[in-house]
């Protein structure tokens, strides 16, 4: 079940615009790797690349020792699952119907889901503490609830490698922790988890390693404690902040220094 994911020097260009440049990443089984970086740094593009939604101009993605492009769709779907920010739109679907779609990769039935698949779907929602969403229309859910359903869909794929694009966005503090705990537990079972996060503190707490992307390049990588420093926040995010590691609770405390808005344009908004 444990699977290594190696991103070997990929480059992505859309038009003449360089999105990713020579990215090198390596994640092993039992490990959560967090990709952090400011908006537009290429985090989602990287996940799309690994999930084969877009193909890199050069470089290789190696999944369990085999180049990703050599997999068939079905093989790949049994190896890598991805939760990407794309809404199923236009038609109303029940939450469980969406989660069950995740089971399609291992399904033997062409028309109906088997009992096993239903069990998996229930487990996926159950583990996220979201069984109450089971029969709800996806469209009527809040953004956070929808996120949970989409995570459950990914989990239902039961793959060795799980990619999640901002899995805790829109979630409240409790649910953020819940989701991260689940991911931690999955990694502890031997799965390979790759997440993009804006929550630097959560990344530090739950992930073995952090990769910092900025303008399509890896600017830092390593253990959270080593990577996440006030210098990094300043150079990558342009935020002046105090980073303190609380040894007692083993958790980073990040306190941004807020400044006054200097721009004159704001007066136009009065």
């Amino acid at each position, binding site marked *: 079940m444990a699977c290594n994911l190696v991103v070997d020097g990929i480059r992505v260009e859309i038009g003449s615009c360089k999105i990713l440049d020579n990215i090198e990443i390596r994640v092993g089984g039992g490990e959560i790797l967090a990709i952090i970086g400011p908006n537009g740094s290429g985090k989602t593009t990287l996940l799309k690349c690994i999930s084969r939604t877009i193909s890199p101009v050069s470089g290789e993605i190696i999944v369990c020792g085999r180049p990703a492009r050599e997999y068939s769709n079905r093989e790949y779907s049994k190896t890598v699952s991805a939760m990407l920010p*794309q809404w199923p739109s*236009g*038609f109303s679907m029940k939450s469980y119907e969406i989660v069950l779609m995740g089971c399609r990769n291992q399904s033997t039935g062409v028309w*109906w889901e088997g009992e096993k698949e239903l069990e998996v779907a229930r487990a996926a929602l159950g583990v996220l503490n979201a069984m109450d969403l089971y029969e709800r229309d996806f*469209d009527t859910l809040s953004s956070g609830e929808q996120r949970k359903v989409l995570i459950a869909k990914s989990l239902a794929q039961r793959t060795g490698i799980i990619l999640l694009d901002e899995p805790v966005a829109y979630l409240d503090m409790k649910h953020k922790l819940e989701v991260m705990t689940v991911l931690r537990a999955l990694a502890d079972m031997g799965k390979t988890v790759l997440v993009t996060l804006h929550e630097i503190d959560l990344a530090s707490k739950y992930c073995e390693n952090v990769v910092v992307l900025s303008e399509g390049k890896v600017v830092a990588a390593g253990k959270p404690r080593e990577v996440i420093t006030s210098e990094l926040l300043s150079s990558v995010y342009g935020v002046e902040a105090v980073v303190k590691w609380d040894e007692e609770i083993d958790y980073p405390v990040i306190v941004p220094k807020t400044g006054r808005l200097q721009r004159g344009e704001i007066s136009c908004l009065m």
Partner: protein
Amino acid sequence: MHAQPVNKRLRLSLYVITLSIFFSLAFMISVMIGTMQLSPFEVADSIINPNSDPVARSIVLGYRIPRILFASLTGFVLGVSGGVIQTLTRNPLADPYITGMSSGAALGAAIAFVVPFLPYYAVPIMAFLGGVSMLLLSIFLAKKAGAGPIGFILAGVAVGTFASAILMVVLALASEKSHGILYWLFGSFSTSTWGDLQTASAVSMPAIIFALYKARDLNILLLGEEHAAQLGIDSRRLWLLMLLLSSLAVSACVSFCGIIGFIGLVAPHMVRLTIGSDNRFVLPLAGFTGSLLIVIADNIVRNPLNPIAEMPVGSVTSMIGVPFFVYLLIKKGKSFGM
């Protein structure tokens, strides 16, 4: 605590049985009524007994049954294909004609009307060729543009508009033949024959059965081509294959009976509004709904009490379907996600 989705099989069977009963009733009534009113006994007699009244026999076997069957086939194909195309484009406003296929078929038929001294079976052949060529053209253009479903819809609109423009020119030149063309455009089953039925179903039924077989994968295509690929679906191929097959199926029917609007758009929505978006329900039930709608509409068209006898069946389907659709929309539209 939660409804077992396995019950879906039972629910689907129930819906299918209910709609089948309604459909059978509509079918039987349809065979009985018309210019010559026939009792159930006379109908049965003319089917079973080769020596029964030749007039009743040719009316029942030569006209009514092939006509009703063709109407049902067309309704079924339009309903299923409508559901498929809406799924493929992920656009609830899409219908089977979105590829510009209907305009192409209309143009082909119109040309067959205008070119002098073509045999009478030239119209369906030309309509089919016209429809398929516009379909292929719009797929080709969409691939060139490479903008996914939206690019496809826009290419279809462009191709369809272009074909319609030429059709208008043909109509303007057609003079006294234009009422033949117009009547074809309205759609009618008045001359559907067993031969038409055989040809149309030979083309459309395999496609429709394949679409139904792939209903679960089509559900996943609702998430988008990329998501479907990540779930193990050969989505690009399935997308193109489903589009081609369902359009061909519609083309095959429409080439004989003319452009029957509305069913392909609305029959799938009627099912979605009542039952949900699962294509395993939507596709077969939309097929039955389409058949039922079209057979009822055709009955109104054929009814001797109808003062405007043989009016366009497409407009009747709209007249009876739209109020029901609007009712559903108002009642359940909020959960529709549109």
